[in-house]
């Protein structure tokens, strides 16, 4: 009986996920990212182009490549 209930719950959860996940992703993309895109285009279009490298080369100065232990503990 308990197993049947668990299986039923799993099916319900999967069905809810199948509906909510695409809807959530659709909203996150078109509302979240879309609005951000519009604002960035209006206010700071350079973000969409990426940083401009120095003249004559496409190399950029590398930063944060000599981390200490505290730096290494961070995920960012």
């Amino acid at each position, binding site marked *: 009986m308990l197993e049947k209930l668990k299986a039923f719950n799993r099916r319900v959860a999967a069905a809810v996920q199948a509906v909510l996940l*695409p809807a959530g992703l659709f909203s996150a993309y078109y509302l979240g990212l879309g609005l951000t895109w519009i604002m960035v285009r209006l206010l700071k279009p350079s973000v969409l182009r990426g940083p401009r490298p120095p003249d004559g*080369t*496409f190399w*950029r100065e*590398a930063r944060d*490549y000599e*981390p200490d232990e505290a730096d290494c503990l961070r995920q960012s």
Partner: protein
Amino acid sequence: MPSRVLGLSAHYHDAAACLMQEGRLTAAAHEERFTRRKSDAELPLRALNYCLQEGGITAPDLDAAVFYEKPFLKFARVLIGHLRSFPRSYPSFRRALPRWLQDRLSLPLTLKSELGFSGRTYFVKHHLAHAAAAFLPSGFTEAAILTADAVGEWATLTRGRGSGSRIRVESEMCFPDSLGLLYTAVTTFLGFAAQEGEGTVMGLAAYGKPAYLDRFRAIAAARPDGSFALDQSYFDFYGEERMYTPRFVEAFGRPYAPKAEMDQRACDIAASLQALTEEILLALARDLRQRTKLDDLCLGGGVFLNCVANQRILEESGFKRIFVQPAAGDAGGAMGAAAFVSHCLWGLPRGGPLSPYLGPAFPASRCRRALAAAGLTFRELPEEKLCRETAKMLTEGLVVGWVQGRMEVGPRALGNRTILGDPRNPQMKRFLNDRVKHREEFRPFAPAVLAEEAADYFELDSPSPFMLLAPRVRPQKRAAIPAVTHEDGTARVQTVAEAENPRFYRLIKAFRELTGVPMVVNTSFNRRGEPIVCTPEDAVAVFKATAMDALVVGEFVARREEHA
């Protein structure tokens, strides 16, 4: 003092784990070898459990775990990338976001729940991990470092230098200007799988002429220092199905379907891409040599699995020696991250030369059981006789599967999970491609040659123990070894020294005694689309599914005719 660190790479392709103890690499393996899913990108739980077992420890005994990139930085790049290609990037966003939110941003929690490990988890930048993987095991006290791959967090290429246990990355190029992504995009254009078919494209290049080089040069505008920018109107790195745009198709013609016949246009495109890659890498290396004035160069990142480009860098960049580690791609990132923590953070001394034999070995009882369970008739032979008999089989034109000792780390089989053949046999290449490996007929095969005799056959004056150089075969020797001489007269050589792999060395020596030729054909023990075999059972399964003639597992020899 802390000394045990577990290195991990995962979530892009080719996940791997390694264990360093007291500054020494004691185990390393790709997850795909255990799960049997090619380039498996999932968190490498089986590989890391193997590493712990090999090291004789459990997860709570670890002082730290280290991941080969900074997940939050990479996630930020993924989001900004999707923003830049809005609204085309929705299909990619829909696929990527759940994966990121599910487990990629919570590695410490996953390690705790899956392993019971609750110690420190470090995160090392992706290209720093590649730089560490290239320099720290190189044996050089001071060297220039160049890394190149598809993309890490943001960086796609870095340059710098290493000295003692210090690594300085001085400059970087960033996404989307990526040599690795360019190579992968063209690989998919030619109908091969991303992250798998790049080596095939390199092989295909030998059959073409660089007729499209100018078009590629226009797409990748390079400066004299080798730095370049990709014209993004040709690429869609967040596209659902293709990494290239209609403009790329306009420039190069219709794309190739998977498994399509490779015509002259495909060969010329491959040759042009390879020529551009070599041109850029050479310019980068020459510029780095001028800046650093150093004699030694360490190369890291998946781009340097390109042995043809490596050979040109060695010959033409001005550096006297180069070092490319056997797992130069992302799997090696796990080793680099662990080495960085061991040597650069904890100050443990750098160890001796790197051995690629870091995977699992299996006892004789397991080998015997696997052969018996498959119904094979087999004999057990002492080593000397085993090598002699295997060499004799090769001289008879037989193809032999050879499984010995610890499995290799990296994408190349280096004599322990290997299919062997006779390099003198002109039919060997066709037979191996067609009947054993089930792959394209143009794919070349590599020689494993006695280190001390390599220079007699190849224009090579430095060792190539990891099969990452492709020297020219000496013209007078080409006819003698047709099975391993590629269309352009080069060969992807593995030099075998007795100290590095004694049994494999003795086998080649035995072949030399019978034939006068100090090498064998060496190709990875797998079938198309499958990872290299790991266990004796995997080897038996491939043996039974292909036209291989004999199988040598440990001290046991099974011949097909004996159980036919």
